[in-house]
C-alpha cells in the first residue's frame, strides 16, 4: 500500500489542527469509543495538539477494560485446574480479578500461553491431546467472528479438547445505555473503524437520529483521527448531526456479511456485564446451543465465588464523561496503574491510567 509522505502528513495535520481551533468556539467533549483509537491518539500526541476547548474522552471500547473481574476470577480458577492450558491475547495477562491476575498465576505455575491468533489454539490442542485448551475469548464485533471461525475450524478438524471462555461484547448497546439516561456529556463520537468493518455503520445511525449527536467512522492514522475531529467540530458548530464514514477504504455500508454470518452461526445475543457499567441488555454474545460443547463452563463447570467489584469505583461515571478521574476517591490511592481497581485504570490507555500517568501533562516548550 502507498505510504503517506511525512511532509504531506505534517501539512495536513497543521491544517486540521488550525481549523479545529478556529471552528470550536465553545468547549466540546468528544468520545473515542475504541481502545485502539485511544492508543493511536496517545501515540501521535494528538491531545497535545488540540486546543484546550476540545477534550477527548475514552469510551467503553477497550475489551480488556470492560471485562468484569468475575470473568478474570473464572479464568484464574480454570488456570488452576489440572490438565488445563489457558490461551489468551497478551492484553488480558495483567488485568486484575478480585485477588490475582493471570500473570501471577503463570508465575505460580499455571500453563498460560499468549497467542496472537486464536487459530494457534487448535495446534496447541492437537499437540496436547490429554489437556483441555481454553481460549479466553474477549473482544468486540471485530474479534468475535475470529473466535467463531476458530470454533468452526476446530469442529471441522474434530478437535475435541478446544474450548472457549467467552466474554465477547457488542458496542452499540453500551453506547445506547450510556446515552439512555440522558446525562452523558458527549458532543460527538469517533466510531470504531474496525468494528464497523464487520458491522457496517448502520448500527450507529441512532446516535444522530435519536440523540442528535454527530459521529464519524474513523480510521487509525493520526490524520484519520484529526480529520474526524475536524468533521465533528464542524457539525457541532453548525448544529448538524450526521453519522459519517471517513474510513471508506475498509468500511463498506454492508460491513463484512460473510463474517457476520459466521458470527451469527456460532453466537447469539445475550445480556452481559461490563466492568464499571454493570449489566447491559443484549450487549454480549453467547454460544448457540449447537456449539455449547465448546463452552468450558459447560464441559467443566466450576464454582467461582462471586466477588463484588469495588463499590467506591466511579469508572462508570468517568466513562459517561460525568466526572474526571481526580474526582474519584480511589484515584491514585487505592487505584493505580500497578494495582488497578477499576476499568479505566486497567489498560495502559484507559482514561484513569492516562490521567494518572500523564495528568494534564504538556510539554513545556
Amino acid at each position, binding site marked *: *500500500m*502507498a505510504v*503517506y509522505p511525512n*511532509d*504531506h*502528513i505534517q*501539512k*495536513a495535520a497543521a*491544517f486540521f489542527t488550525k481549523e479545529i481551533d478556529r471552528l470550536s468556539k465553545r468547549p466540546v467533549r468528544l468520545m473515542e469509543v*475504541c*481502545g*485502539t483509537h485511544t492508543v493511536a491518539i496517545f501515540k501521535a500526541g494528538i491531545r497535545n495538539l488540540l486546543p484546550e476547548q476540545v477534550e477527548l474522552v475514552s469510551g467503553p*471500547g*477497550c*475489551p480488556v477494560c470492560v471485562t468484569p473481574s468475575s470473568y478474570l476470577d473464572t479464568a484464574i480458577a480454570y488456570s488452576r485446574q489440572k490438565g488445563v492450558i489457558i490461551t489468551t*491475547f497478551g492484553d488480558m495477562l495483567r488485568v486484575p480479578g478480585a485477588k490475582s491476575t493471570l500473570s501471577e498465576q503463570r508465575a505460580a505455575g499455571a500453563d498460560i500461553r499468549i497467542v*496472537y*491468533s*486464536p*487459530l*494457534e489454539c487448535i495446534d496447541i490442542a492437537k499437540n496436547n491431546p490429554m489437556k483441555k485448551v481454553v481460549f479466553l475469548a474477549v*473482544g*468486540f464485533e*471485530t*474479534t468475535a*467472528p*475470529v473466535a467463531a*471461525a476458530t470454533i*468452526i*475450524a476446530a469442529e471441522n478438524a474434530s478437535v475435541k479438547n478446544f474450548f472457549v471462555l467467552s466474554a465477547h461484547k457488542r458496542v452499540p448497546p453500551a453506547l445506547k445505555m450510556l446515552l439512555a439516561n440522558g446525562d452523558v456529556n458527549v458532543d460527538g463520537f469517533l466510531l*470504531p473503524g*474496525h*468494528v464497523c*468493518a*464487520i458491522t457496517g455503520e448502520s448500527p450507529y445511525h441512532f446516535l444522530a437520529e435519536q440523540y442528535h449527536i454527530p459521529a464519524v467512522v474513523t480510521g487509525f492514522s493520526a*490524520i484519520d483521527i484529526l480529520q474526524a475531529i475536524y468533521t465533528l467540530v464542524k457539525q457541532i458548530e453548525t448544529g448538524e448531526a450526521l453519522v459519517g464514514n471517513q474510513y*471508506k*477504504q*475498509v*468500511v*463498506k455500508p454492508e460491513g*463484512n456479511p*460473510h*463474517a457476520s454470518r*459466521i458470527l451469527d452461526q456460532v453466537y447469539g445475543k445475550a445480556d452481559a456485564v461490563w466492568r464499571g457499567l454493570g449489566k447491559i441488555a443484549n450487549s454480549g454474545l453467547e454460544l448457540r446451543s449447537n456449539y455449547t460443547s465448546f463452552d468450558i463452563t459447560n464441559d467443566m463447570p466450576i464454582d467461582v465465588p462471586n466477588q463484588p467489584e469495588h463499590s467506591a469505583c466511579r469508572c462508570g461515571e468517568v466513562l459517561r464523561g460525568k466526572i474526571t478521574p481526580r474526582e474519584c476517591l480511589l484515584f491514585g490511592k487505592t487505584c493505580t496503574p500497578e494495582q488497578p481497581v477499576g476499568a479505566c485504570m486497567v489498560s495502559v490507555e484507559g482514561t484513569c491510567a492516562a490521567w494518572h500517568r500523564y495528568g494534564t501533562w504538556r510539554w513545556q516548550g
Partner: protein
Amino acid sequence: MCLAVPAQIISRDEMLALVDMDGIQRSVSVMLLPDVKQGDFVLVHAGFAMQLIDEKEAEFTMGLLKELAEHGSLPE
C-alpha cells in the same frame, strides 16, 4: 479495541493465505473473507483477513492529503 494491519495476498489455498506486510510474511486465515484473490489488499486482525481494502478509496484519501499539503485547503 481492534488492532488490524493492511497486507497483500501473495498466494492462497482453501483456508489460508500467505500475506505480505511491508516485507514480512505470515499465514492468515481467509475463513472470514473467502473470495479474496492473489494481489488483493486486506485488513488482518488476530491472524484473520477481515475485510478487503478498497484501493480506489485508499487512493482517494491519498489524493486528499496531497491536495491539502499542496493547497492548504480541502476540496469542497
